[in-house]
């Protein structure tokens, strides 16, 4: 329990640091929201209207520290402010439109890629110099070395345009109204195949290799030899003895990968016109929409911290030594 509490304390601290950076980083960018607004009209906005707008948006010239304290207070109350780029929608609502899809996209891609990659890694290590071990790692690393953007465009072109197997974009068909039905779920899955598939394709190699390598190391250890000598079934030795221990480094990587994929979902979303938050972030930066930027960063940060907390708890189950260290 102490372990969990200590980890929890660490995450609260990390969240605070992230919040603070969230606040100050956008403000270090050149320009200000009013200039960006001006830019949106290419200057065709009368100075009087500009002044009116500044008032409507509530741009202030208060000292930064005071703004920071107000900001912290608002965040604690769950109020992320009003988006300038999507005025007058509150930031929560704007993020709400995209974040579920991004979480679905990135989450399923990471989980699937992790699961498949790890299993393949186990297989590659168990059957050393088998065909999985010989061909897959090099092939996947080769594919993973392509720029993601390019690979995604090719996939879209081949499977979307030329073969017509999968839809060309969006999270679900345009003529379907979202609902909790089987038909809608199938439709969402069909739309997710290409974006999720391409992310898996480029990330699979990493999981496979890391699992394979740590598994090979574990397979040489005494307790695995003992398990074999005891005459335990090979599947049990492979999964319960070797894989479970070899999994530890990969699990640590999993928490970090979620962060990368959430942050990097922008490219996927642009190629496949997926209605996620990646594009919102671009809009926010373009319009110097501090509130929206902060909101998106905050949600990403919280998601990554949450995932890492889950990983820590998973560790407890996976690795008895962490349980030992609590006393």
């Amino acid at each position: 329990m102490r372990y969990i509490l200590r980890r929890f304390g660490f995450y609260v601290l990390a969240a605070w640091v992230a919040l603070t950076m969230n606040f100050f980083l956008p403000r270090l960018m050149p320009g200000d929201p009013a200039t960006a607004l001006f830019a949106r009209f290419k200057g065709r906005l009368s100075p009087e209207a500009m002044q009116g707008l500044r008032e409507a948006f509530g741009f202030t010239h208060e000292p930064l520290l005071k703004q920071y304290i107000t900001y912290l207070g608002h965040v604690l109350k769950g109020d992320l402010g009003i988006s300038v780029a999507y005025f007058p929608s509150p930031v929560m609502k704007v993020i709400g439109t995209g974040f579920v899809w991004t979480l679905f996209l990135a989450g399923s891609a990471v989980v699937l890629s992790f699961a498949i990659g790890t299993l393949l890694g186990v297989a590659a290590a168990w059957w050393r110099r088998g065909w999985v071990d010989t061909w897959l790692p090099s092939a996947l690393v080769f594919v993973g070395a392509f720029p993601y953007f390019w690979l995604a465009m090719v996939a879209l072109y081949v499977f979307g345009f030329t073969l017509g197997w999968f839809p060309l974009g969006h999270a679900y068909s345009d003529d379907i109204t979202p609902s909790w039905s089987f038909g809608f779920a199938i439709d969402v899955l069909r739309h997710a195949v290409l974006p999720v598939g391409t992310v898996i394709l480029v990330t699979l190699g990493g999981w496979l290799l890391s699992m394979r390598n740590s598994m090979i190391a574990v397979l040489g250890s005494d307790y695995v030899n003992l398990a074999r000598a005891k005459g335990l079934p090979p599947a049990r030795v492979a999964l319960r003895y070797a894989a479970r221990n070899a999994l530890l480094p990969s699990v640590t990587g999993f928490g970090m990968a979620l962060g990368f994929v959430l942050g990097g979902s922008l490219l996927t979303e642009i190629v496949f016109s997926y209605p996620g938050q990646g594009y919102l972030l671009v809009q926010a930066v373009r319009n110097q929409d501090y509130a929206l930027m902060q909101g998106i960063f905050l949600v990403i940060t919280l998601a990554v911290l949450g995932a890492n907390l889950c990983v820590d708890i998973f560790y407890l189950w996976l690795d008895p030594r962490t349980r030992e260290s609590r006393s």
Partner: protein
Amino acid sequence: MSLRARFRGAGILFPLLLAFGGAACAPEHARAPKGVLIVSQEQQSSWIRNFNPLTTATSARWPTLAGVYEPLFVFNSVKSQYVPWLAVAREWREQNRVLRLTTRRGVLWSDGRPFSARDVAFTFDLLRRFKALDRRGVWGFLDGVTAVNDSTVDFRFQRVFIPGFDEVAAQLIVPRHAWSSVVDPVAFPNEKPVATGPFTEVRVFQDQIYELGRNPHYWQPGKPRVEALRFPAYPSNDRANLALVFDEADWAGNFIPAVDRVFVKRRPQDHRYWFPLTGSSIFLYPNTTRVPFNDVRVRKALSMAIDRNLLVDVALYHYSRPADATGLSDAYSAWLDTTVIARGDWVKHDLARANSMLDSAGFRRGPDGLRRLPNGKPWNYEILTVSGWSDWVRASQVISRGLAGLGIQASVRTYDFAAWFQRVQEGNFDLSLGWSFEGPTPYNFYHWLMSSSTVKPIGEASMGNWHRYGSPEADRVLGAFEREPDPAAQRGLCNEMQRIFSAEAPAIPLYPNPSWAEYNIRRFDGFPSAANPYADPSPNKFDRGDLLLVLTSLSPR
């Protein structure tokens, strides 16, 4: 033209894919029902429901500004003439201090209530009460707006200001009965618009798509013939272009590189485009508060060092033409003074003359070949441009090469939009690319190029006139134009403005921007084209209502 609609950005992969996959035959994709026009104008990943035509706080969904709501007069920028729309007649009264408009009878709002001059007066009163709605700054010259009766409205001006008509005419009108109870019209999302335009009924509104149906009470009988407009969300230019090439979208206003090969050749019988040169003119702005750019001989020499033919070829795939000495785009064809163009040799590429001009102006080359200021400082300048705006970046490179021939080391420096804009607005630059300001007459264009009233001190952000040039002679002519209601006399004054511009060269014109429009005529008929140039074809042209002309002319096949 909104920023989003501009091309720029990562546009390399799209032509690449089309190049190596061009032979593959795309299967037919599910199409919209007959009569539903699929348009790609805004690039968004998901839609936010907003149909507020007045607010400047956010961009309302297309075509709120010309399609859902309507202006008093539509300005046809291809023909350079006004088309009566919600107003049918105008008249200047009381020594041009009062503008009287007669509104159209028989117009109904989409909820069936009648439109009247009182709605017009109400709308202008809203702009007066909420400054953030007054995007054209009409209350900078208006004194009061009153509805004389149901079909007559009087605009009282603070002073005689004839170009004020252009701003009044373009104002979109909202219904009094629906808007008088709106507490905060700046933040009002207007989810269910009540309007006079051809498309007012929101049939579908989801994250990824929305659809606008016909106005059941539209005042033009039998129109629009298009049943509905549908807007899929495409987040990038590449994606929108693919949709266009593969017959997913019927109409778009994007930049497409090598459009003949990439788009037209794909299906020559249906794929059409027309890029009339009616966009804003692109300039190289020299900071005229700094030495040596305060010298007209230097500005002209710089201009003559630029090979504009090469520039439009390299930067714009030859979609445009080199600018002439008036700097005006084809949107002002009715105003052009051909003698100014014929005599304007300072926009022709002539490196030898440019060099001798600088020599005779006393700017000698140093031993390293670079020219020097009288104080010995070598001519070493930066050309500012926006990163990702590939046409501007390429244009800057051509310019930089040209200036090298004059002994000027001009390096191209790209900035993020916001950073670039701040520098330019505050006058913190030597040379920068930039756009020009448009209007129905060349008044606005030259006003922002050389009127002393637009010159702000260095360091203070200025909406235009970034090069900070004021010409007393231009002030006189522009002032006279403001007080001149007679079209023939206005033409004479515009010729004056062009002559002054060409003589003083306050900025260096490069090329007029095209108005982008691509369309598919398989399902719809009636798009403007070079053969039938009845209006500007671009969906981006909503500023003064051009779009309405197209929307009411299209018909399903």
